[in-house]
């Protein structure tokens, strides 16, 4: 990539050395600091330094140095992910690595090249460390319980650094305290509130661990409703009370507990059991084995003290960072070129190229970062087979379950809130929807009932559909119930309106509230959860005798969607490229009028013709030729006529309130830099002809 000789190169080399020397120095200092205190920021900094060292020396062709840094990075990666505990020898090895890097750096500076001597042993030792637990790293892909939380005695698994700090505290005559702080329920910023307490505490006592953690990315708000601090302090509760009794704190509980038992230094073994990772017989927490069994650990897959990210996603992110380093060097070369009077047109060309790549890089990184927040919905779906099996046995209704779209990814924060509503809907389907086998056979249906749960992404929304082939909604009995409840105009409500009633509290048309789905969570709670908490929507579709479908739509929180900008009747709209087949021109002649509406030919079939104007209830301006786009939604396709096709754009969409979007035509709204509004189209209107 870079010239092997010439003035450019010398300058580059100088830049590399300057930066490199600073790097290795900081690395050494940080590792030393790490010995004194275990600090996640410090850890991240060290990782970053090592990574930079690896990439930059690789760029410059110093393979040995790069290899050394690489193995250090691997080991650090495993410490960071909790696969490897930062014990004494690990730290010693890392520090040896840092020292060696410094030596190599000064050799390069003096001799102009690196020397091999003494590096390979080090590299081997480090690789051995990484390799011995390398297998374990693979298993952390997928839903895993973090090692930081363990049911035994309610102690988190303290790492070596934390245990050391506790030792020192014990020597000072302090004891271990578990402080549970509960934030007032209506405090909107629970995380900040917990942080305030933490900040106060830090000034007067030794905080060892916070559950859930306050560093790194904040988890969902509700998790900080009760925050537990493990700290050491001298006897006497006043100081602790003073620090934690901040306004908006509902209650504070102070427990003096025993220091946890100590594992032998360096003999913590990490066993891999299926999808979960847990400590082997390590004698943590007073000599009791923390091994447990897979199910006890995986029963709490969502209680994380840190988030788990698929290592492939992290790798992707890191490769972006490495590319950034390349570009940085390239641009630095160019700026040197400018100073030396290099040909301007050449510089311009290369700059344009660089910026193009940077642009792609930056979107790629944005996407990759967002992806780290996304986890596959299978994490919830995986519970369903068992649920259906148990219920079907209990109710004596054989039912089969089909899942699809399990790898559709959704934001972590939504996962917890979705679980209950989905479970309830499935229970409902089994309890009320699907008929008993004898009845089914009598009706000519297959004896086994069928439930399908599918998830897919549609532009800026996640759609989850739960369908059963049971009775369908009995709209007449809903109407009767409505009348009996005194709902005005019940007799003249349309089918759609009647179906909406199901979401009101008190609307179970089964007089007998069965054990399975009657208690607590009703469809009204489902509706509230989806509509209010998750700002999504839920809708029912049904064919009497054939079945019911519950369709949930959830907005992705902050989304950047690649879209096609179009205009119609002075307004701007964005069509997600995911939903777009193609742009097209339609002539009036091509369109034919059929029963359901207008159609026109596309790829050998006649598909419906819609227009933006039509969707809004306006008159379409009659023309000879129309601009249109071909859209798809699931398997449905259609033309959409617009006034103008503008350009492709990345749109940051935000949720849009129902008041502005009563017929759910839009999945979001955005404000362009110039202040203009753009509405993002929800293509599900293509499907509205069904049911």
């Amino acid at each position, binding site marked *: 990539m870079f010239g092997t000789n010439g003035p450019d190169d010398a300058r580059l080399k100088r830049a590399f050395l300057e930066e490199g020397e600073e790097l290795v120095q900081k690395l050494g200092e940080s590792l030393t600091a790490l010995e004194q205190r275990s600090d996640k920021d410090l850890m991240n900094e060290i990782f970053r330094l090592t990574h930079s060292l690896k990439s930059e020396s690789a760029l410059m062709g110093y393979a040995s140095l790069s290899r050394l840094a690489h193995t250090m990075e691997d080991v650090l990666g495993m410490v960071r992910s909790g696969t490897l505990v930062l014990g004494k020898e690990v730290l010693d090895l890392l520090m040896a690595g840092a020292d060696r890097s410094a030596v190599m750096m000064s050799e390069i500076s003096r001799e102009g090249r690196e020397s091999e001597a003494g590096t390979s042993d080090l590299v081997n030792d480090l690789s051995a460390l990484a390799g011995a637990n390398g297998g374990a790293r693979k298993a952390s892909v997928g839903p895993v319980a973090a090692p930081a939380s363990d049911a035994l005695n309610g102690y988190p698994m303290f790492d070596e650094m934390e245990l050391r700090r506790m030792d020192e505290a014990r020597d000072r005559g302090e004891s271990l305290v578990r402080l549970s702080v509960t934030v007032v329920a209506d405090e909107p*910023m629970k*995380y*900040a509130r917990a*942080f305030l307490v933490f*900040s106060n505490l830090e000034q007067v006592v030794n905080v060892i661990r916070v559950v859930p953690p306050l560093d790194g990315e904040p988890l969902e708000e509700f998790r900080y409703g009760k925050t537990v601090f493990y700290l050491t302090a001298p006897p006497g509760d006043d100081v602790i009370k003073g620090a934690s009794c901040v*306004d908006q704190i509902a209650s504070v509980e102070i427990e003096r507990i025993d220091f946890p038992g100590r594992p032998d230094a360096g003999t913590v073994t990490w066993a891999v059991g299926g999808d979960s990772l847990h400590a082997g017989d390590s004698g943590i927490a007073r000599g009791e084995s923390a091994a447990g069994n897979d199910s006890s650990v995986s029963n709490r897959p969502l209680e994380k003290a840190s988030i788990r990210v698929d290592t492939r996603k992290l790798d992707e992110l890191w490769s972006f960072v490495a590319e950034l380093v390349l570009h940085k060097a390239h641009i630095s070369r160019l700026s040197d070129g400018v100073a030396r009077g290099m040909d301007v047109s050449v510089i311009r060309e290369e700059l344009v190229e660089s910026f193009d790549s940077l642009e792609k890089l930056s979107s790629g990184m944005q996407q990759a970062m967002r992806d780290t927040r996304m986890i596959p919905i299978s994490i919830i779906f995986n519970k369903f087979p068992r649920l259906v099996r148990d219920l079907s046995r209990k109710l004596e209704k054989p039912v089969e379950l089909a899942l699809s779209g399990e790898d559709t990814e959704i934001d972590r924060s939504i996962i917890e809130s979705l679980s209950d509503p989905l479970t309830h809907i499935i229970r409902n389907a089994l309890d009320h929807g699907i008929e008993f086998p004898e009845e089914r056979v009598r009706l000519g249906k297959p004896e086994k009932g069928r439930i399908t749960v599918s998830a897919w992404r549609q532009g800026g929304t996640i759609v989850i559909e739960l369908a059963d082939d049971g009775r369908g909604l009995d709209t007449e009995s809903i109407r009767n119930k409505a009348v009996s409840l005194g709902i005005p105009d019940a007799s003249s409500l349309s089918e759609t309106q009647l179906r909406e009633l199901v979401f009101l509290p008190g609307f179970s048309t089964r007089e007998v509230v069965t054990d399975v789905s009657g208690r607590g969570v009703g469809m009204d709670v489902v509706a509230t959860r989806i509509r209010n908490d998750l700002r999504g929507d839920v809708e029912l579709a049904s064919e009497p005798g054939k079945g019911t479908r519950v369709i949930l739509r959830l907005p992705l929180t902050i989304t950047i969607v690649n879209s096609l900008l179009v205009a119609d009747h002075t307004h701007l709209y964005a069509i997600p490229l995911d939903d777009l087949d193609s742009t097209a021109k339609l002539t009036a002649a091509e369109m034919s009028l059929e029963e359901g509406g207008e159609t026109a030919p596309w790829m050998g079939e006649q598909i419906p013709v819609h227009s933006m104007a039509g969707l809004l209830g306006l008159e379409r301006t009659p023309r000879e030729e129309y601009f249109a786009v071909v859209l798809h939604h699931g398997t449905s396709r259609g033309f959409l006529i617009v006034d103008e096709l503008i350009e492709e754009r990345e749109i940051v969409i935000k949720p849009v309130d129902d008041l502005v979007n009563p017929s759910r035509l839009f999945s979001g709204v955005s404000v362009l830099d110039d202040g203009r509004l753009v509405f993002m189209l929800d293509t599900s209107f293509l499907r509205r002809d069904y049911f």
Partner: protein
Amino acid sequence: MGATILIADDLSFMRMIQREILTERGYTVVGEATDGIDAVNKYQSLSPDLVLLDITMPNMNGLEAMRKIFAINPKARVIMCSALGQQSLIVEAIRAGVKDFIVKPFKPERILSAIAKAMQSS
């Protein structure tokens, strides 16, 4: 009671509400500031017992103003007011030493109890 308080918020409506609530409780509102710079100046000249600072203000935001106020008096009592969605700013403010924070829209009891607690300590 009778502690002296400085209110800083760029919205006159907000200042009005806060003034009302505080005065009724017997606190003395010694001044109102409309932006960060104004807040710092008024803190300097009026030396109030406590400052209510809004986090988003023109010319200098609450965070900056707070830092400057702490430079004037490390023991200053500052309560930060914020809208939802500015949690990371609040966390930064806490790191910098703010005593308490209030999320808008707030209930009057909240602001009063936050002030009471702040006045109790040191």
